[in-house]
């Protein structure tokens, strides 16, 4: 049923068109335009205050945009939610106190137009063993899984998760993403905001980098790494180091000299190292390594800030 609905419509799952949202003097979201397509698993990445939560709030109709349009399955966010097409788990989403986990999940199922069986939802979220526990007696990680259960109480086409693994330990996190992959494998579109950059790298097909309410980068994790300068090069030099010629090396994106050690990032490490020898220098202990997404992210953000100031 979900697949036919998707095949029938060419409309994006989520469409933001020139969306802005301002709080006082702060532009939380600034002319954001993006489209999510059926079946994608998308990470929304950005530092605190980048506008991730506001973006998700706008997407879910919890906030109204000052300008621009937000469409979910071609309709308003609220209409999409009422049609049961969106399941969401918010960081700021609270739970009802003094009821049991099972009672709360049953409520979640009752409120969905195409619900799953409560027992199945509990099992999938890994909370069957704590079904009889009171919601206000749960640990942070357990509460997160209850929120996840509420987000997946029915057959939704889009799952939205705001920093879903906050408060989970490493094994719980792995179990969570395994569950999430099952959701994605069933053809659902998944959008998640995260601080754990390795999660975006490991799980998402597509990474959106948000900074100061604007879309800084949109691509696969590999493309984003490439965009930030693909390689990290480090070496030692003897004698006093003259930084000026180093700064003129081709494809250089950042340079750091401390003592006898030079660390730099390059968009084309081969060309940079070749030019290094061309300067008549003799680098020792030369190392060339790929950047993790985390460094790539820091580099993109820093480059953006340098451009603005």
């Amino acid at each position: 049923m979900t697949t036919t609905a998707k095949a029938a419509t060419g409309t994006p799952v989520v469409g933001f068109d020139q969306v802005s949202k301002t709080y006082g003097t702060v532009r939380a979201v600034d002319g954001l335009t993006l489209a999510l397509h059926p079946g994608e698993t998308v990470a929304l990445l950005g530092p605190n205050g980048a506008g991730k939560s506001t973006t998700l709030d706008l997407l879910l109709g919890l906030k109204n945009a000052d300008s621009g349009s937000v469409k979910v399955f071609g309709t308003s966010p609220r209409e999409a939610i009422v049609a049961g097409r969106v399941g969401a788990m918010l960081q700021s989403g609270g739970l009802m106190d003094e009821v049991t986990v099972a009672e709360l999940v049953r409520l979640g199922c009752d409120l969905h137009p195409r619900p799953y069986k409560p027992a199945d939802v509990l099992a999938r979220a890994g909370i069957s063993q704590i079904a009889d526990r009171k919601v206000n007696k749960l640990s942070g990680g357990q509460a997160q899984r209850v929120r996840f259960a509420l987000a997946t109480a029915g057959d939704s086409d889009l799952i939205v998760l705001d920093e879903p693994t906050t408060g989970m330990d490493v094994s719980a996190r792995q179990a969570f993403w395994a569950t999430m992959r099952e959701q994605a494998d069933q053809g659902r579109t998944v959008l998640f905001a995260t601080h754990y950059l390795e999660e975006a790298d490991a799980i998402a097909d597509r990474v959106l980098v948000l900074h100061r309410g604007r879309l800084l980068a949109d691509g696969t994790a590999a493309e984003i790494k490439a965009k930030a300068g693909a390689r990290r090069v480090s070496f030692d030099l003897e004698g006093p180091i003259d930084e000026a010629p180093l700064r003129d090396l081709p494809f250089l994106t950042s340079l750091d000299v401390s003592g006898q050690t030079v660390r730099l990032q390059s968009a084309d490490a081969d060309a940079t190292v070749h030019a290094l020898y061309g300067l008549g220098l003799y680098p020792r202990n030369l190392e060339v390594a790929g950047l993790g997404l985390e460094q790539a992210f820091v580099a993109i953000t820093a480059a953006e800030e340098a451009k603005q100031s």
Partner: protein
Amino acid sequence: MNSLIKLELTRALRNRRFLFFSVIYPSVIFLLVSNQSGNVGGSGLSVAKYVMVSMASFGALTAVLMGNSERIAKEREGGWVRQLRLTTLPGRGYVLAKTAGAAVISLPSIVVVFLVAAAVKDVRLDAWQWLALTGAIWAGSLVFAALGVAIGYLASGDAVRPITMIVYFGLSILGGLWMPSSTFPGWLQDIAKWLPTHAYAALGRAIEQSQAPHAQDIAVLVAFFFLFAGGAAWLYRKDTLKA
């Protein structure tokens, strides 16, 4: 929405402290206060009959005001209200479920006072009076249910409990639910007669006296209902835009 009402009820019925204060406590005060014989000045009603209506009204007030204002404030802050907005539940469903939940608790709090009054203090009324009393006090409690919702959307954090307490005790005492307002000094009586709690109890006393309710009491209750419900709706909308 029915499932949310059901869950709200389950939760309320599990809360012993809340049940004690809204269902048992008014009857206990009734037994303590209704010992005097004779009539309450000017009303022509025995002390037992007079206090019975006061305490039934007080119990209903407790049930609809105390639980909801604090719960709503907390659940707004805790994000449960946001979470519900991600479901198919219509926007007003949350408030309606809260009100319905309170109404189910307020009914026994009224009936238990009547049962205790009839069994222990030999209060006797016609069948229609018992039914009319129950109906009037139950329906009238909606005014205060709306007030509870309004406070829940107005106050937050640590402020909600003291505000609720001040409103609750202020309305109970000044409205004459604890002692007849005829014992107040004149200037206070002038204020008291415009309070919704005063009009609320007067409604019940008129039924006990086999009279039609006074137009002024009805007008006061209706005016306060629109004031509280309008305020609650306005605050609700403001909160929704903010969240």
